[in-house]
């Protein structure tokens, strides 16, 4: 790391040890629903699971549904390879997540909430249960009729997809539903449901405490606030960091790389690989469209140095997708198998190098036609790796 380079601004909001959740809740619950929704909308907070849907709008749309029963669900099925920040949030500041759920519940009119917890995070349960008891006491004190339960996932990656998550909670096979309708109208048990990522809910606590204005001061246009990153790979300082959105990959690499960074995978296996030559031109955040210039992420930042084979990296991702596709839709189920077998065949010389172009066209089809985000996003890592490291795929 060059000493002339200014270190990225480390934010300390989410993990800040704040034990004032009763006051925050009391204040938030005292405000009108419209006021809180406006606060959320003005903050510019977008879903931190990676898809980036505006949180305030999600709450608003659900609040508008005239249905008696609604739900708030915290999506803690953190399954994206290279992502481990929700685990940390739930370990260190679960009360902030729960506070976010409670405020959301009040606004939309839900009496029941669930934390859909990744199967592998079972070890968090005793602590979460203790926290829940404490939190329910606070709700009783504040007179809010709302209860949160933990629902254990069983280890399927696809169940992190919101509609597959509902199916799983309903005791069915975890398969994504057709959209529309969206969860704001028809979610868990076919009732309007707000489903937010763990981090999103924790951020809502920050917004309620410090106000939308303070949150908006962080980040850049379209990408407001801070974000918790899970940094892994070839880095001397792996771990969890809260940083401002909008940073360039170059700045990130300067801070976290080992001096020999070849590429960064932004957004896990379903995200994009950014090669060295594009570090300066790529920033982290949400733009209206996926341009490759601004990349969203659920928080996973995997750093690869020059010792890494990009073929092995891609092979690893495709192995993952081939197994974790739910299998219901053709482009995803068969497409993943074809991509995996295809790169192997090219590597072994059983297929010509030009077969990679056929596979790239296939990923276009997958992106256009797959039923859910999983199948649509396989194209991201595939095309960004194959296009930038074509020679590594062949030789």
């Amino acid at each position, binding site marked *: 790391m060059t000493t002339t380079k200014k270190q990225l601004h480390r934010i300390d909001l989410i993990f800040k040890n704040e034990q004032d959740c009763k006051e925050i809740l009391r204040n938030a619950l005292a405000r009108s629903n419209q006021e809180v929704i406006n606060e959320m909308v003005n903050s510019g907070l977008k879903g931190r699971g990676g898809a980036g849907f505006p949180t305030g709008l999600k709450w608003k749309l659900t609040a508008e549904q005239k249905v008696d029963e609604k739900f708030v669900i915290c999506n803690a099925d953190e399954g994206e390879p290279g992502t481990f920040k929700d685990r940390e949030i739930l370990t260190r500041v679960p009360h902030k997540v729960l506070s976010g759920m409670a405020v959301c519940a009040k606004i939309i009119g839900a009496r029941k909430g669930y934390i859909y917890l990744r199967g592998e995070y079972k070890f968090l349960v005793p602590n979460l249960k203790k926290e829940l008891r404490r939190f329910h006491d606070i709700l009783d004190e504040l007179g809010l009729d709302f209860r949160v339960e933990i629902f254990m996932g069983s280890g399927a990656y696809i169940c992190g997809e919101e509609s597959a998550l509902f199916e799983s909670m309903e005791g069915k096979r975890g398969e994504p539903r*057709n959209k529309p309708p969206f969860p704001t109208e028809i979610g868990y048990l076919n009732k309007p449901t707000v489903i937010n990522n763990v981090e999103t809910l924790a951020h809502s606590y920050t917004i309620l405490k410090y106000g939308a204005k303070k949150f908006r001061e962080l980040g850049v246009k379209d990408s407001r606030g801070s974000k918790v990153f899970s940094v892994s790979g070839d880095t001397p300082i792996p771990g969890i960091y809260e940083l401002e959105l909008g940073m360039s990959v170059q700045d990130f690499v300067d801070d976290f790389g080992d001096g020999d960074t070849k590429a960064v995978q932004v957004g896990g296996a379903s995200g994009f690989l950014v090669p060295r030559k594009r570090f300066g031109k790529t920033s982290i955040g949400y733009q209206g469209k996926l341009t490759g210039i601004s990349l969203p992420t659920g928080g996973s930042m995997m750093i690869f140095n020059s010792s890494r084979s990009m073929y092995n990296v891609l092979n690893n991702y495709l192995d993952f997708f081939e197994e974790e596709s739910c299998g219901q839709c053709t482009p995803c189920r068969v497409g993943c198998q074809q991509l995996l077998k295809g790169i192997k065949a090219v590597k072994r010389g059983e297929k010509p190098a030009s077969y990679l172009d056929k596979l790239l066209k296939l990923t276009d089809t997958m992106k256009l036609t797959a039923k859910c985000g999983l199948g649509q996003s396989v194209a991201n890592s595939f095309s960004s790796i194959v296009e930038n490291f074509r020679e590594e795929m062949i030789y």
Partner: protein
Amino acid sequence: MSNMVNLTINGIAVSVEEGKTILEAAEKLHIKIPTLCYHKDLCVAGNCRVCVVEQVGNNKLVASCAMPVSEGMEINTNTLKVRNCRKHIIELLLTEHNEECTKCYRNGHCELQELAAEYQITNQDFIDLVPDKSYTVDRISPAIEKDDSKCIRCQRCVRTCAEIQSVGAIAVAHKGSEMKISTVFDRALDEVVCTNCGQCIVHCPTGALTEKSYVEKVWDAIADPETHVVVQTAPAVRIGLGEELGFDPGTRVTGKMVSALRRLGFDSVLDTDFTADLTIMEEGTELLTRLKRALVEDDPDVALPMATSCSPGWVKYIEHKYPEYLPNLSTCKSPQQMFGALAKTYYAKKIKVDPQNIVSVSIMPCTAKKYEANRPEMKDSGYKDVDFVLTTRELAVMIRQAGIEFEKLNDESFDSMMGTGSGAAVIFGATGGVMEAALRTAYEIVTGREVPFENLEILPVRGLNGVKEVSIKIEGTLDDWKFLEGVELKCAITNGLENAHQLMDNIKNGDRFYHFIEIMACPGGCLGGGGQPYPVDNDVRLKRMQAIYNEDSDLAIRKSHENPEIVQIYKDFLEEPLSHKSHKLLHTTYVKREQY
């Protein structure tokens, strides 16, 4: 009236009701969008993705079967993007699919094959995935075969089994590349709750689910000069067969079918309608006996409602799901099995052929009949009562193989003796038919008068509704039946096992009381059976239904007890309904089975 939504498809304006899908709107414009996982009978899955279309302003393609229309929507179904994607999807499906089309049972009747031909998938260069798959073929059941290598995972069978039939014998197992349609613990279909109804076959777009074929065995029997091959044909075959042989749905081909069966070489061409009439005599008497025990003798053990037992899919369903109601099931065998038992006893004696030289074949709209014929209970003649059961589709195969130009055939009549059926027997092929036939006879036995419905048509029991109810007040009874005077006979009719499930739950919960219920496993009754031609939907079912009722109203004899052959068999052989001989040959027992 619901709101109308305006949109354009390929630049053509169309207005459809709110909530309709793009696919339905396109249908209105006669624009065909290919589909595989979509079926009108089933809930929308949206998983094959073959029906994707372009929506202006949406950077993804949308599945037209699942996407509701919205105001101002602009859809294009035939852009380069759409065509390329569709072609990719068909290619992908083919790489997972055993492409030995010429060796496939569904060759020529396969929706995937049709699409591949339509999109000219000729230079497939994706990698063939089949060699690395451990596909299994289940040929254990006597009725249904399941070949996973032909499966395209559209889940039409899964939805059929769950939604229409409430059975759930097949479901999706595993995920990703391992995802497959399976049974509990991957057991054979014959070892699970499967009712053999064959609705999965009728709804399968490929050769993954098929009937077990006995065509070759029947050809062997016909070719053997030592055997006398007797064939019976169920009521619903005569109104379904034509669809396989170039006629429109709802065409009655009874006479041509008889003529074709003779040309195929069957020695006796007889009619299941005869034993349908016999069923009415036996089952009607059984019902009246049960009512007498309940009403006169106050017998607490008499099981009411009495349920029909003609549908072997329903019989196996109740054995699995409601075994506590087995005493309610009529002890009558189904018409097929009554026929089988008589063919090797009464009929053998009449034609002076040693029953061990008789091969008894039945043509059924049904796959569960194949299972039924193989039940250990079905050997009361001293032999296997029915040797081979063919579906309507299999009969069509034989007719084509024999080079018979079906549409040119003249009409012929069934052989006499066990070859005559009344109109009441014909309507067994439609849901409500057994009930209507039973009422036509029972009411007349009890009162000496015809049922009080115009032209004997008991309209409330007809149609495709899930649960139909009818109650008839019995008045002016004859002396023997005074105990029924003023009784309101309550009946219910269902078709499809999901409806049966609801009816049974209503009975179980005490929400409803009936004296007599008719249950058919398949939607529409036998006319919509698992052995009938594909494709099928409610339009086709209604046409077949109309054909059945036309067949009935054209017959001179429309009441089972007036069938002269029925009168004769009781005189010559059976003596009277529920006689000792009847009990031995025409009645059966049931067994409790596992829940899963």
